C-alpha cells in the first residue's frame, strides 16, 4: 500500500514552514527533496569512510572505493544496465550530454551530417549539439510537436534519413507532461545507422527505466532530481561505444600510462571519470536508488499519474486557464498560464502561502516560442506530494486571481 503521508515522514524538509504556512513543495522537476536515508548516507560517509578512492592502500580508501563502486552497481541495476562498465558518473545530465557531444560528437560528426532533436528539448540537450554542430559542420534538424504537445512521429519518420548520425530526445518533458516514444525513435535511428541519445532527467526519477528496453545508445540523468544529492549524475552507454570514443576530460584517474608527450587511457568507465569525483554524492545517489527501489518505480509512476490527472482536472475547473500538454497520459507536471497574471507574479503570491512552484521558460526557450509565450507557471509533483497539496494550490490560485483582478478593475 502506497502511502504518501507515511513517505513524507522520511523527508525532514517537508515539515518546515514558509511564511507562516506549511511548505507545499511543487518544484520537483527542478530538484527533488531528500529523504533522511540519503542525508544519513552522506553524513555516514563523511563521518566514517571518507578517503580518496581507487588508489589508496589503506582501510578508509578501500571502504570509500567500495561505497562508490557499490553506488555504481545500484544505479546500473536501477536503470536496467546490463553491466557497470557502461555507467559513468558525471556532474549531472548536462555534463553527461556534453560528454557525448564532445567525446562522440567531435569524433564521429562530419560536415553535412545531421543531428535530429525535438522542438521540446531542454537547453541541456540542445546547446551541446549546437556547439558540436558548429565545430564539425553538422546540421541540426528538429522533430516538431503537435498542438497537444506530443511528438509528430510522421514528421520524425520523414526527417530521419541516411544523413542522420544522431537522434536525441527528452524521455519525459519538463514542461508538457509528456513521455516521448523514445523506443520508436531508437528503432528509426538504428534503421538509418544513427545513434540514439535519451535525456532521462525527467524520466529516471519518475518512471521505471530500462536502458536495454528503450534500445538507446546513450542515457543521461541527474541524481538531484531523484532524491539524491546535487553534483552527481549518470551517463550510461554501451561499453563498445564508450571504448571507441575519445576521453572527455583529461587528468588523474582516467589514464593508464602517462608519458611527457602522450598517454593511454584507463579501462571503462574510469576513462571518463577524470580527477576526484563527487564521491559522497555518488554514495548518496546509491542510497536514493535504494529508497526508490524499496517504493517500487511502478508505484511511484502510478502515484504521480493519479496526482497529475487530479491536478489537471482541478486546474481545468478554474475555467479561464491554459494548461499545456495533452489531456491524457500525463506525468506529474502541470504547466499553465492564467490570463492577466504573469507567472512570476503568480509564484511570488504562492510563495506567500508557502507554496513553491516554478515560473519562467524552464530552460526551454524554443518550446516557449512554439507555445506562443515567454514563460509559464509549473507545478511539478513527486512521490511525496498529496491531493491535499493540489487543493491548497488551487485555493491559492483562486486567491491570486482575485488579488490581481481587483487591481485590474
Amino acid at each position, binding site marked *: 500500500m502506497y502511502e504518501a503521508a507515511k513517505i513524507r515522514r522520511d523527508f525532514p524538509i517537508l515539515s518546515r514552514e514558509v511564511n507562516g504556512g506549511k511548505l507545499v513543495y511543487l518544484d520537483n522537476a527542478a530538484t527533488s527533496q531528500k529523504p533522511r536515508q540519503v542525508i544519513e548516507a552522506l553524513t555516514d560517509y563523511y563521518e566514517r569512510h571518507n578517503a580518496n578512492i581507487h588508489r589508496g592502500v589503506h582501510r578508509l580508501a578501500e571502504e570509500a572505493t567500495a561505497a562508490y563502486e557499490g553506488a555504481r552497481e545500484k544505479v546500473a541495476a536501477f536503470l536496467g544496465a546490463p553491466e557497470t562498465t557502461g555507467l559513468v558518473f558525471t556532474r549531472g545530465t548536462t555534463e553527461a550530454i556534453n560528454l557525448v557531444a564532445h567525446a562522440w560528437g567531435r569524433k564521429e560528426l562530419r560536415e553535412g551530417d545531421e543531428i535530429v532533436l525535438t522542438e521540446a528539448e531542454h537547453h541541456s540537450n540542445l546547446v551541446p549539439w549546437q556547439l558540436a554542430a558548429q565545430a564539425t559542420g553538422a546540421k541540426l534538424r528538429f522533430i516538431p510537436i503537435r498542438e497537444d504537445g506530443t511528438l509528430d512521429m510522421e514528421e520524425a519518420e520523414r526527417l530521419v534519413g541516411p544523413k542522420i548520425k544522431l537522434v536525441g530526445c527528452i524521455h519525459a518533458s519538463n514542461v508538457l507532461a509528456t513521455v516521448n516514444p523514445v523506443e520508436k525513435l531508437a528503432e528509426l535511428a538504428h534503421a538509418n545507422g544513427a545513434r540514439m541519445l535519451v535525456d532521462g532527467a525527467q524520466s529516471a526519477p519518475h518512471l521505471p527505466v530500462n536502458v536495454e528496453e528503450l534500445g538507446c545508445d546513450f542515457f543521461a540523468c541527474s541524481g538531484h532530481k531523484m532524491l539524491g544529492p546535487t553534483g552527481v549524475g549518470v551517463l550510461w552507454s554501451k561499453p563498445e561505444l564508450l571504448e571507441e570514443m575519445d576521453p572527455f576530460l583529461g587528468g588523474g584517474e582516467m589514464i593508464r600510462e602517462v608519458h611527457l608527450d602522450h598517454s593511454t587511457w584507463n579501462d571503462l568507465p574510469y576513462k571518463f571519470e577524470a580527477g576526484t569525483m563527487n564521491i559522497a554524492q555518488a554514495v548518496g545517489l546509491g542510497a536514493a536508488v535504494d529508497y526508490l527501489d524499496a517504493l517500487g518505480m511502478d508505484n511511484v509512476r502510478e502515484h504521480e499519474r493519479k496526482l497529475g490527472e487530479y491536478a489537471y482536472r482541478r486546474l481545468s475547473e478554474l475555467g479561464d486557464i491554459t494548461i499545456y500538454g495533452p489531456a491524457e497520459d500525463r506525468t506529474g507536471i502541470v504547466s499553465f498560464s492564467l490570463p492577466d497574471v504573469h507567472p512570476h*507574479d503568480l509564484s511570488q*503570491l504562492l510563495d506567500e502561502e508557502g507554496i513553491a512552484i516554478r515560473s519562467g521558460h524552464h530552460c526551454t526557450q524554443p518550446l516557449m516560442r512554439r507555445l506562443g509565450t515567454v514563460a509559464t507557471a509549473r507545478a511539478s509533483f513527486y512521490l511525496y506530494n498529496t491531493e491535499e497539496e493540489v487543493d491548497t494550490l488551487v485555493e491559492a490560485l483562486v486567491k491570486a486571481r482575485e488579488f*490581481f483582478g481587483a487591481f485590474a478593475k
Partner: protein
Amino acid sequence: MNMLRELYGQIIMDHYHRPRNRGEIPDADLEEHLLNPLCGDEVTVYANFDGDTVSEVKFSGRGCSISQASASMMTERLMGKSREEAEAEIQHFKNMMVGEEDFPEHDDLAALKGVIQYPSRIKCATLSWTAFQQGLED
C-alpha cells in the same frame, strides 16, 4: 497576503494595468532590446531626441508586473532629460535597487522599494533601465 499588498502596491498595479508610454517608435533614435535570461521576459525601449534632450520615449515587450510597471515609470522619469541626466537617473535607480541609495519619498518610484526584499525580482525592475542604459552607450 499583507507583504504582497506592500509589494504590489496600488502604484505598481496602476502602472502595470495602465502603462504610460507603451508602444513602439518606428525608426527611433534609440532602440534597444533586452531579454532577462532568468525568466525569458523581454523589453524593447525606444527614444527620440530633440538635440540632446529625450523628446519621446516608449517601451514594448512582455513581462511581469514589476518589470512592466518599472518600465512605465522609467519612461515618465526620462522624458525631457538630457543624455547625461538620463544616464545619471538610470545609475541612481540601479543604486537604489541594490540598497546603495535611498528611494525618493514622494515619487512613484518609491513603490518599487519593496522589491529589494526579493532579490530574484530586482532584475525584473531593472530590465528596462538597463536596456535604456545600453541604448545610450551604443
